[in-house]
C-alpha cells in the first residue's frame, strides 16, 4: 500500500514551513523529526504525561494526540520560541531556573507550554489552581513543589510586566 501523503503548511514560532507528510504522521513526530524542533518531548504517546504539549493558536494541546495534517494552516508555538531573540528567558523559564523547578528537564518543555497558556488565562492564580493546571503534566523528578513555586513567581513577574 502506498503511503497517503498530503502537502501541509504550518507556522511554528512565527516561521512558516511547507512539507509533504503521511496522513498518519503524529504532529509530535513531525515537529521533532521533520522540522527538527526537538525541544518538544514525547513521554507516553497516549496523552497522559503532557511532555509533548505545544500551543495551537494559543491553546495548549498534546502534540502526540494530533496528526500533522490536522495542524495544516495553523499557528503553533513550541518551547524553542519562548525565550526572546535576545536570549532573555520568558518569565516561566526564568522562574523555573530561579526556583529549581526542573531536574532532568525532560518534562519541562511541556510544563512551560501548559503553564504559559494557563497564566495567560488566569494571571493571578492560587496555589490550588496552579496545582490543578499542572496536574495534566507528569514530572517524575521534582515532586512538583518547586514548579508550583516557580509558577506563582512567574505569575507575579508577568503581572508586573507592562
Amino acid at each position, binding site marked *: 500500500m502506498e503511503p497517503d501523503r498530503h502537502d501541509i503548511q504550518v507556522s511554528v514560532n512565527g516561521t512558516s514551513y511547507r512539507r509533504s507528510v503521511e496522513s498518519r504522521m503524529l504532529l509530535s513526530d513531525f515537529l521533532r523529526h521533520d522540522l527538527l524542533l526537538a525541544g518538544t518531548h514525547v513521554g507516553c504517546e497516549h496523552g497522559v504525561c503532557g511532555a509533548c504539549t505545544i500551543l495551537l493558536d494559543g491553546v495548549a494541546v498534546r502534540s502526540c494526540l494530533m496528526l500533522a495534517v490536522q495542524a495544516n494552516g495553523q499557528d503553533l508555538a513550541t518551547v524553542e520560541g519562548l525565550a526572546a531573540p535576545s536570549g532573555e528567558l520568558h518569565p516561566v523559564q526564568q522562574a523555573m531556573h530561579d526556583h529549581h523547578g526542573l531536574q532532568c528537564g525532560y518534562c519541562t518543555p511541556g510544563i512551560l507550554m501548559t503553564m504559559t497558556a494557563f497564566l495567560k488565562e488566569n494571571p493571578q492564580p492560587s496555589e490550588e489552581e496552579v496545582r490543578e493546571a499542572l496536574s495534566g503534566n*507528569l514530572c517524575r*523528578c521534582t515532586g512538583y513543589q518547586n514548579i508550583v513555586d516557580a509558577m506563582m513567581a512567574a505569575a507575579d513577574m508577568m503581572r508586573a510586566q507592562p
Partner: protein
Amino acid sequence: MTTRFFGAPVKRNEDRKLLTGQALFIDDVELPDMLHAAFLRSQVAHARIRSIDVSRALKRSGVVAVYTAGDLGAYWQPGPLLVPPPPIPGIVFNQRTQVPLAKDKVRHVGEPLAVVVAESRYIAEDALDDIEVDLEILSAVVDIEAGLGAAASHVHDDLGSNISAHVHQTKGDYHSAAAKADLILKRRFRYEHGISSPVETRGVVAHWDNRAGQMTIWDTTQAPVFVRNGLAAMLGLGERQVRVIAPFVGGGFGPKIMMFYPEEVMLPWISMRINRPVKWIEDRLEHFFATTHERGQIHDAEIAVASDGRILGIKDVFLHDGGAYDPYGLTVPINSQCTLLGPYVVPAYDSTFTAVFTNLPIVTPYRGAGRQHGVFVMERLLDLAAHELKIDPAEIRRRNLIPADAFPYRNEIIYQDFQPLEYDSGNYEPVLDKALEIIGYADFMAREQPELRAQGRHVGIGIACYVEGTGIGPYEGAKVQVQANGKVSVATGIGTQGQGHFTVFAQIAADQLGVDVTDVDIVTGDTDQFYWGAGTFASRGAVVAGNAVNEASRVVRRKALKLASDAFECSEDDLVIEGGKVSIVGIPEKFVRLGELAQRANPMRGAVKPGTEPGLESTQYFGPPSGATANGVHAMIVELDPQTFDLKILRYVVVHDCGTVINPMILAGQIHGGVAQGIGNAFYEKLSFDDQGQLLNASLADYLLPTALEVPRMELAHTMTPSPLNPMGIKGAGEAGAIPVGPLFAQAIEDALQLKEKNVELLEIPLSPSRLFELSRKATNV
C-alpha cells in the same frame, strides 16, 4: 581556601539548555541515512518457541532487515552478571541472565523475539504485524510462593526449581535473645515496589563508521563506561574503538543501569552488519515490560522485645520476586536484608531470603533498591510492639536508636558493597526530635487530633525512621583542566539524569580554582572524554565523583600556584587565586590569568622538566573504603474520608542528615522527588498482573503516577554529621526521600481510621482507596 560556592544554593548551570529545548536527549540524535528498529515482543509470559517466520515482513517496502536469535550466530550469548553474589558463607546463587533475542523459550511478556530494521519507525512497526510466531504456551510462574511449590513449572528448565538465590545472614544469637523476650510478635508483610517510569523512556542509537573502524553509541544508560567495556568485548573491538555517550537523560532512578538490555546488544550489531546508523526508542507500552521493575517481597518476620520496648532481636524469612533473569545479582534483596536494621540497636538478627525466578520482567534496583521493603518490616514491627506495650510510637523508636557515641557502628552482616555493614557516622536522636518538633507531634496527639476527631474528622499521624547506605565504591575519577580561554573543564565518567552534576561539580572545582561556577564546564557520560568509572547509582555520584573532582581540582590549583610563583619569583604562600587569576597578596594589580598560566604550561619552546607534565590539568580518582550511611525521619499527618478512603496529606516533614551539603537547593529537590515517588509507591502505583503474567494496567492512564494534586508541600530540615570516609564529609541523598514513605502511610492511615480498634492491621504496600475498602469491609464482616 575560600568556599564561596560549596554549601550555597547555587542555581544550576544546566538549566538554560533544558529550558530552551536545546539539550540533546537520545531521540534528538539525527544522523544521515539512519535506520529505525522495532522489536517484536512476546505477548505471553511463558512459552516454548516452535517457529518464527519473518518472510512476509522482509517483503514489505522500506524494511531493510529482520533478525531473530538464529541470525546472531556466536554473538548470541546470555548477558554478563553485572553484580556477582557477595561473599556470604553458604550462599546459593543460580546465574541465569537475559539473552539478546529469545531462542527456545520466552520467559516474560515483552521479551524480544525479533527485530525489524526499516527506513522509518512507522514502517518497522507495520512489519512487526507481518511476523508469524508459533508458540507452545506454558503455565506461568507469577506468585512467588506457588513458584517454589512442587506443581510449579520452571522458568529455567535446567535448574530443576525456581530458586534464583538463597541467603542466610545472622548477627548475634536470635534464639537466646527471643528466650529472654517479654513479647514476641510475628506477622506476614507484603511490600511491592513498582516501576521507575521516568518521563523519558529508554533508547539506543548506534553508528558504526566502517572507514574509521569506530563505533559510537548514544545510550540512555546510567553507566556508560561499563556499557563501553562490555560492548567492545562482545563486538570484538578494542575499547578505544567504542565510544558510548549518555547524553541528557530524562530520569533514571535505577532501571537505566542494567547490563545489558537486549536493545543495547542488538543495535550496535545491526549497525555493523548493515553499515548504517540505527535508532531504537522505547515506547511507553514497551517500557512497562522491557525496562526492569522492582516489585515484591513477602516477609514472615518476628520481633522480640523487652517490656520497655527495647529490641532484643529480629527474625525474618522472606521471598523475593526476581523476575525471569537475575543479571543484577542480589543487590535488591541484600539491601532489604541489611536496611531492615535501620537506625536501631538490634543485638540479634537472623535473616534468610530466597529469591525466586518468575515469568515476569526482570527485577533490578529502583530508587531505594529494596531498602523500602526492609524499612517497612522494621517500622511496622515497632508500631505493633508499641501498641502491645502501650508505648508511644515515637518513644519506642527513640528508646532503640543507636546512641551518638556508638559510631562507627558495626552491624556485621555483609552489605551490597561486599563489606561488613558498618555505619560510618551519625547522630540520630536530634533528627527524631526535630521531626517531632516541626510536625508538632505532642500537640497533635494531645490536642489537635482529639479536637478534630470530635468534629468527626479522620486524621492520623505517622513517623518513620530509616538509614540509607550511600556512596559505595569502587571508585570514580575526574579530569580537571584549565583551558587557554580561562574556563575550567571537568570530565567524569558517570552519567547524569537530572541530579545537578553540572552545578555541584562546578561548585567544587570553582572553589578550588577561584573561578565562577558558570566558568566551569562539566562533561559527564562520554567515554571519549573520560575513560574510567562505574556509574550513577546507589546515591554515589556526589560522594565518589564529587571527591574525585575535588582532588583533581586541588592538584590543578597547586600547579597554577607553582607556575605563578615561578613567574613572580615569590613564595606560593604569597599568592591568592580568585576571580580567574592568581595575584600577589596585597598587590591585586600584580596578577596572571589562569588561562595564561594554562598556555605557559604548554610552551612552544623549551623542555618540559622531568617529573612534570604539560598543561594545567590533573586526573584523580577517589574510591571510598565502604559506603557512607545517611539517615532521616519522615513525619506526616493525613486525613481520610471514611466512605471513599480518599486521602489528603495535611503535613509532610522530612528531617535528614546526609553529612556535609554541597548545594542545599539541589538536595531539597532530590528529597522532594524521592518523597513523590514514595507516595506513588505507597498509595497509587501498583503493577497488576493476572495469573498468566499479563500486566493489566500497562498505560499511564491505568498505572497512576502522582500528579501535582497528590504530592503535598513538604517541610524540610537537616542536621549535619559529616562522613569520615571522604575528605569532603558528604553522604549520598538520592534515595532518602523515597525510602520510609510506605510505613509512614500504613501508620498514619491506621491512626486516622482507628483501624487497630477494628482489628485491622496494614501490613502491605501499596495501599489504595479500594484496598482500604476491602480490608475494612473484611474486618466489619468478621
